């Protein structure tokens, strides 16, 4: 069955003892998207993914993959889905390739050729004969993704695939994910607690916290909603703050050493610079405040310093 919604959650809820880990979550992911599932630690990302994959039973609500209900049609739902939940785990006394042979059989029999293909794709070709016991964390992550690719999936679900990796390892995994989406045309559902990762990779995003969606939509649109903060260095410094506060569209000005941090509400950077120049100031530096996105994320997930 060809559907355009490849992943759907309806009112997904999981209650552990008394804690609501996931609370009435709705999700819809369309074919071809890279969908980011963003949330801080303990937000309920892994619990949601486990329910999506049928590892745990929802307390209420339902999950559908590729148009099949996961609870009632587990086999059909997972036939063309690859997944890694949390850290991928393997039979450590077997080699990477032997592990893939086992998972290939469980995936309905991907052949040797496919195994070599996915090993090549994740860049593990050279070490595939070594026991998994000897693999680094990054190699295991890549083997996990290779495993997810075995059934020639239409949808791949990855749970924090860059977690615990060094910057280079992170970049490798992100490049790999981007490549899968672009050249293999696989729909990707990816959880993360790193906003810039999602910003970099994803078309759409849902932000979760305490098991609930707190924001969702296209990444650019969400970013537009985030407060626009710029960093500015003007000379002379003395009256700059007072002057800037009077410009319409500037919501707040904060002095930060040599710099001024401006929260813009309507004002645009070119106009702002022009105003400063007419006002007799020399503009030495102007740029976006790097931490803004992270702060926005922390703000709406209630984990930040407070707006």
């Amino acid at each position, binding site marked *: 069955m060809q559907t355009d919604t490849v992943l759907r959650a309806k009112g997904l809820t999981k209650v552990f003892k008394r804690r609501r880990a996931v609370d009435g979550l709705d999700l819809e992911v369309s074919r071809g998207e890279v969908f980011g599932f963003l949330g801080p630690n303990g937000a309920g990302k892994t619990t949601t993914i*486990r329910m999506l*994959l*049928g*590892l*745990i*039973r929802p307390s209420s609500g339902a999950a559908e993959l590729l148009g099949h209900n996961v609870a009632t049609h*587990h*086999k*059909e*739902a*997972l*036939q063309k*889905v690859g*997944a890694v*939940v*949390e*850290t*991928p*785990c*393997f*039979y*450590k*006394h*077997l080699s990477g390739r032997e592990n893939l042979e*086992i*998972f290939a*059989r*469980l*995936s*309905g029999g991907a052949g040797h050729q496919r195994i070599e293909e996915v090993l090549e794709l994740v860049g593990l070709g050279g070490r595939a004969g070594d026991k998994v016991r000897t693999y680094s964390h990054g190699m295991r992550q890549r083997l996990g993704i290779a*495993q997810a690719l075995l*059934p020639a999936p239409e949808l791949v679900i990855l749970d924090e695939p860059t977690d615990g990796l060094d910057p280079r390892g992170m970049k490798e995994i992100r490049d790999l994910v981007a490549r899968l989406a672009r050249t293999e045309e696989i729909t990707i559902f990816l959880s993360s607690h790193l906003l810039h990762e999602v910003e970099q990779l994803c078309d759409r995003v849902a932000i979760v916290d305490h098991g609930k969606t707190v924001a969702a939509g296209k990444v650019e649109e969400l970013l537009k909603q985030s407060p626009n903060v710029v960093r500015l260095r003007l000379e002379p410094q003395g009256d700059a703050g007072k002057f800037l506060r009077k410009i319409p569209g500037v919501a707040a000005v904060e002095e930060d050493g040599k710099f001024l941090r401006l929260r813009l509400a309507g004002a645009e950077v070119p106009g702002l610079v022009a105003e400063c120049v007419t006002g007799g100031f020399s503009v030495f530096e102007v740029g976006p405040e790097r931490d803004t996105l992270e702060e926005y994320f922390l703000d709406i997930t209630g984990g930040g310093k407070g707006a």
Partner: protein
Amino acid sequence: MLEDYRLEFVKTFRRPRTYLGFVAVGLISVLIVIAFRYMDVATFLRHTGVSTFFTMVGSPVNALFVAMSVLGGPMELFIPAIVVLVAGDLLAGEAAEGTLKMVLVRPVQRTRVYLAKFALAGTYTVLIMAALGLISFLLGAVVFGIGDLLVPGPFLLINQWLNLFPMGEGLMRLAGAYALATWAMFTMAALAFAISGGIDNSNGAMITPLVLILILKIMVLFPTFDGIRPYLFTSHFDLWKSLFMAEVPWREVWRSAGYLGLHTVLFLATGLLIFNRRDILS
């Protein structure tokens, strides 16, 4: 299904610790042969009252005798422990290692994974019992030779009695006894395996069944519990001994075997129900 079983077979038999059981079984056989080699068995039997009516010439110890004796003590706890060590690890071990979640996100039915794994536990039980029988028999043959099978009464908890089976019949009875002992160990494997499907660490699945049979065995030492004794599955673990009686009480043998089989199925079904419903959180 055969494919699922084959996978489990590869996974288990590629693991060194699987072979520990066979090493243990070999050791036990060596020990019993050494014990018999340096023990005056004839005198020992006379002490137990067996030989008051007979004059023993030579030793009754041979390959058949060794293979029969090796079932005696070890069946109480040692062999159950070996079986449980593997059966209890099959599901819980994978849960602890995290590979269970990797397996269960593939398009596989939990029921099939469960049954394939139990089939493997059964295979392992058969192999362990076969190894015990063959190793002890061969060692016995090399050290003592082969011949007729002498069954001392005390071995069957019958005083002032002994039985001598010609070699051919002795071998048949031995084979039957091993088959029944294996059948009893299936029940043990099923219990450990069922527990293994419900928890995330294999220690629990290995230790719980052993503690349980210990408790039941100690319990039935007290006359207070005589009434419930026949209803405990552990009381039927020594059904194989009946095969060495002069007249095999077949009705009782079948009843015990049926009772054990019922438990095997009951344990497995309960375990499957739990495994199918449980949340995989590791």
